[in-house]
């Protein structure tokens, strides 16, 4: 074992040029694999984040569309230990009256303290604004909505419910949630104001919205909730059901990314295998001498397995460095007009370790054929033919 390792090390170090070239080959392959994998992962994370980062993963609403349901607090209490972030909302279509016009908006009444955990309104409020105080008639308004109708902070407007009831509201700020449709239609208030506008009872809301730790488990958790709550009048919608196209896009992307990575690794393996196969020919004289002196077949094949293993470690480490370098360069130079990276790079250390491991395993694997060749080599061939 030890001897095989020593010989392997010496073979590699006595032929530095060749060792460097193979290491570089492995490193480039692995760095490309890391780069592609990280890029796609970063892309997916940012895409997912824009899709569900500020929205409900599981929404509990009345089975009958656009109707509120009763006793929401019982449900909230029951599920509070299953989901971290859950907020009640009273939402409905309404109209605001500006000067001579009447415009359709979506009035979203929230328990602002808990809703802020999902929507992060406090971060989205633009300069000069603030969150509405609970129990008042204060509202936040989408930034596009305010621009469309020339509304300013401090303005007092009237809101008209579908039932025809008029309520006065006061604008205390604008928000930008980075989604055009929301910015152009949402008016956000406390629960009380919304309850007044739509004339609902104290124990009624239109929905409970929630975010969970593992968004991809939303379907399972939604089913679990449904069983636990066991109320005929409620339905549990998860985001996955509503975003099938996105999900199949993401999974297609993952598959093609994986395919690219697999082919890169295969080409690395083939490269190492062929170089090591040549090196068995180069070293056959030495192997023959060693065998004549009594080295056994196991040791003579270990010499090549260790070479593959060592090259894998070297190439893997260098590949991780190169990969990180590529990612840094990419995030520095591929920028949007506003200076943010085109794809936010996501550095996943476990993925990198895995790539390093792949380098080691695959190059050791690639040295199996050379190792078998070395095992078969008979000393007499070398002694007779020089």
């Amino acid at each position, binding site marked *: 074992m030890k001897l095989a390792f020593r010989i392997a090390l*010496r073979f590699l170090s006595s032929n530095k040029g060749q060792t460097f070239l193979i290491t570089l080959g492995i490193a480039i392959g692995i760095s490309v694999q890391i780069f592609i994998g990280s890029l796609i992962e970063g892309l997916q994370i940012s895409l997912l984040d824009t899709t569900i980062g500020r929205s409900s993963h599981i929404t509990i609403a009345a089975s009958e569309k656009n109707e509120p349901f009763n006793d929401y607090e019982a449900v909230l209490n029951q599920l509070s230990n299953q989901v971290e972030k859950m907020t009640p909302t009273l939402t409905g279509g309404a109209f605001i009256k500006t000067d001579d016009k009447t415009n359709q908006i979506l009035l979203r009444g929230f328990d602002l303290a808990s809703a802020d955990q999902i929507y992060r309104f406090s971060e989205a409020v633009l300069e000069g604004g603030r969150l509405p105080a609970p129990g008042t008639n204060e509202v936040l308004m989408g930034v596009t909505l305010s621009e469309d109708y020339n509304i300013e902070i401090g303005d007092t407007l009237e809101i008209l419910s579908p039932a025809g009831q008029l309520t006065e509201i006061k604008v205390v700020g604008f928000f930008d949630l980075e989604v055009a449709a929301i910015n152009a239609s949402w008016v956000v208030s406390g629960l009380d104001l919304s309850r007044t506008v739509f004339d609902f009872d104290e124990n009624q809301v239109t929905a409970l919205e929630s975010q969970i730790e593992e968004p991809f488990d939303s379907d399972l958790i939604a089913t679990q909730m449904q069983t636990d709550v066991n109320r005929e009048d409620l339905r549990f919608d998860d985001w996955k059901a509503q975003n099938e196209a996105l999900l199949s896009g993401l999974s297609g992307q993952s598959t093609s990314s994986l395919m690219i990575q697999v082919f890169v690794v295969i080409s690395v393996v083939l490269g190492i295998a062929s170089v090591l196969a040549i090196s068995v020919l180069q070293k056959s004289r030495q192997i023959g001498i*060693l065998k004549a002196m*009594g080295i056994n077949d196991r040791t003579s094949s270990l010499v090549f397995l260790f070479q593959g293993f060592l090259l894998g470690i070297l190439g893997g480490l260098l590949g991780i460095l190169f990969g990180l370098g590529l990612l840094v360069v990419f995030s520095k130079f591929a920028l949007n007009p506003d200076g943010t990276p085109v794809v936010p790079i996501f550095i996943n250390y476990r993925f990198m370790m895995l790539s390093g491991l792949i380098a080691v395993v695959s190059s050791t694997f690639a040295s199996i054929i050379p190792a078998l060749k070395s095992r078969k080599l008979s000393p007499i061939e070398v*002694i007779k033919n020089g």
Partner: protein
Amino acid sequence: MGNIINLSKVSKIYGTAVKTQVLYDVDLAIKPKSFNGIIGASGSGKSTLLNIVGTLDRPTFGEVEINGIRTDQMKKNDLAKLRNETIGFIFQFHYLLPEFTAFENVLMPHFIKGQKFDKRMNDRAHELMELVGLSKVKNNLAGNMSGGQQQRTAIARALINNPRIILADEPTGNLDSETTEVIYDLLRDINKKLETTFVIITHDRRIAEKTDRIIEIKDGRIYNDFSRI
């Protein structure tokens, strides 16, 4: 006294389609501690015979015994162990490992044996290199030495494991006559001091004269066998 090497009815045939018989029913017994020379024309089968004795090659027919153990049927790995422990080789083209220093080359059979490298081994390696006159170039890479130095390194290497047998195939084939003389005196010395059995192929009649026994091979048969002891 028993024989340390015993060949009976050894034949060697090369090739499957076109068969070339190189050795014909060779019987050969070598006594322990003896110093034997093998001579014969080029192509007569000397190397083939020596390689069979050294277990590097197998006879097509016949039996080979080393130290009283049948080797012609042994497994590859057992043969490797036997070679490592009981046989030292000196080849015509010295065959060192160019990636290692002279000192490391000398110790290689010991490393292969798998025993620990302690002070005693270190001293022994130094002594052997002294014995063959290589103290100065110990740490040269094997490739960076003269032919004679490489040959002497190979001799020290053949001795490191204290083998009972040393097989040499024209060990001075590419050396000048003065160096040749020095090396033979060295081998003879080792034979006396360490009681190692030697079987040496040589073209050089003058050298052959100095051996205890001269075995002449002709066309794959023992043609002449002259013993002084």
